[in-house]
């Protein structure tokens, strides 16, 4: 885990309220400080544009997965009942499209939901056995954190960040290597 190349020295500050956090992120952006990440105990609305995050593209993938599921379901049923083993049920045509609709729909939902969820965990790097890089245990409780990567930063950079935290009323600041 603690390979030298992956360890990052982080200088971070904790805030007591999401409004303080938003102000701090705004001020960091104004000072052109490069934020490594922002951690919050719950999704803070209105934070994404301030941090500069682009809208997630997960839903495009959801559409692709869903379309795959729909095609897979419908084409499999069509192939099975017209090519592989045509079976007569109650005098209905072999290619009984209306009665394929329910399963096609279920396959759409199944593929979209599983595909998106697995993609979500994969791109976020979340998986059973992954050790969380926790800066402070209270970040999942009631603290809002702004973190800077200070690996190899000079003393003056650190002073600048220290000044930033002071001016934005961080309740605590600390350094940690993760």
């Amino acid at each position: 885990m603690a390979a030298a190349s992956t360890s990052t020295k982080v200088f971070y500050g904790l805030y007591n309220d999401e409004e303080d956090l938003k102000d701090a992120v705004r001020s960091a952006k104004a000072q052109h400080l490069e934020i490594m990440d922002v951690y919050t105990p719950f999704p803070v609305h209105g934070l994404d544009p301030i941090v500069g995050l682009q809208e997630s593209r997960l839903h495009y993938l959801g559409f692709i997965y869903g379309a795959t599921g729909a095609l897979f379901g419908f084409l499999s049923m069509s192939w099975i009942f017209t090519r592989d083993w045509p079976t007569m049920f109650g005098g209905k045509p072999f290619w009984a499209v209306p009665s394929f609709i329910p399963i096609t729909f279920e396959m759409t939902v199944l593929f979209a939901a599983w595909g998106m969820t697995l993609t979500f965990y994969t791109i976020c790097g979340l998986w059973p056995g992954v050790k969380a890089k926790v800066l402070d245990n209270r970040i999942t409780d009631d603290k809002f954190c702004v973190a800077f990567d200070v690996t190899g930063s000079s003393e003056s950079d650190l002073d600048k960040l220290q000044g930033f935290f002071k001016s934005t009323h961080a309740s605590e600041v600390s350094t940690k290597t993760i």
Partner: protein
Amino acid sequence: MSHVVSPLRHVLIEGNKSYHNITEDLCSPTEKAPTREWYIAFLLSTAFFGLYIFTIVWTVWKGIGVWGANRTINWAWDITNFVWWIGIGHAGTLISAILLLFRQRWRTGVNRAAEAMTIFAVVCAGQFPIFHMGRVWLAFFIFPFPNTRGPLWANFNSPLLWDVFAISTYFSVSLLFWYTGLVPDLATVRDRATGFRKKMYEYASFGWTGSAKHWQRWESLSLILAGLSTPLVLSVHTIVSFDFATSVIPGWHTTIFPPYFVAGAIFSGFAMVLTLMLITRKVLKLEEYITLNHIESMNKVIVLTGTIVGVAYLTELFIAWYSGYIYEQFAFYNRVFGVYWWSYFGMMFCNVVSPQLFWSRKIRRSIWWTFFLSIVVNIGMWFERFVIIATTLARDYLPSSWSYYSPTWVEIGIFTGTMGLFFFLYLIFTRVAPVVAVAEVKSILKVAGSQYIGPNAKHGHGHDHHDSKSVPTHRTEEEA
């Protein structure tokens, strides 16, 4: 202030909670030793779970001849119970998905437990059709896969196969939705835990940190899963109703079944959520998070869906009369005044008459009335499924094969046993995970907390706490 909330909005989090209070209140039940009530409930449900295992083993060993189902009434308690449990599951998805799309904030107090209830109810429901197959070791034949029997495929034109797809999709998607919502809360529990518990929750929380990008994707995923679950939940009970509606049995062959089944499912599910929540909030002391406003909102859903169900019952009778078709008319005459008349009147009373009491605000906000009526509604919804299934089959085409059905001890054992299984799973859930969505409750604190809105709100709250804490305390901590 960034949050503008109408003064008409209900307070959803009482008691002046801070974010830390919320964490403390909602996580602490998983950290303390179980109470005596929990042990008693757990022993009782384990006993019934044991009964379930015994009666199922008995059924598989002896064959389904030990059930009271016969050649005329070949779907009886088992399918009644299956539909009943599936219906109960629907409220969880309704609360977590449909109310999320409608931006109903009160859902945050109850969604986690309701979603868990969905999953456990679907587990219980699944037992019935699986064991009704008789040779349960061949149950995998229902899945279409290339095989050495031809290959003989499953019948994709059959509503029973649609059900296989619907229920299994529903179960797995509900599980994903529930667990993905749970991950941040498990991380909260992890960060409070020590020793072995910390290891366990580290594993269960997948390494969640609360990064802004992760939250953004998490919200996007939740919203789309909600969007997918909404038509899914409607499709599931629609397909369950197709099991009946696509058959040619008078009394089953009706186009009203899909909406009628869906409304009934939501109705019974909300009743079960109320039964569970009223006990849970009391035992785990969550009255400030699952407030009377939550209970009242759910009771409003009950009165709405109960009335929809009532209209469906009457429409059915009217259409049977109006059709001018004597066999259809007989089917419904038989349903009301036939051998199972008592179950019809039980259903009418429990589902249509009793929920009307909720028009009274006083009864809607009364814990005891709500608890009592939630159980009445669940009994009524069980009757509804029994009425549809057993009375219709008991008087089908040939009078010579008319019959009567009553359950054997094995069927009673299996049904009460699935209740044991349900509560067994639910009680374990209350011990290992926060039953209220911690992060989601925090996210609505400033728009629904009693210090921000309502009669006790402290006005002028804003950034006034800056001055006192403006000096950061520096502490350095190096870890490899």
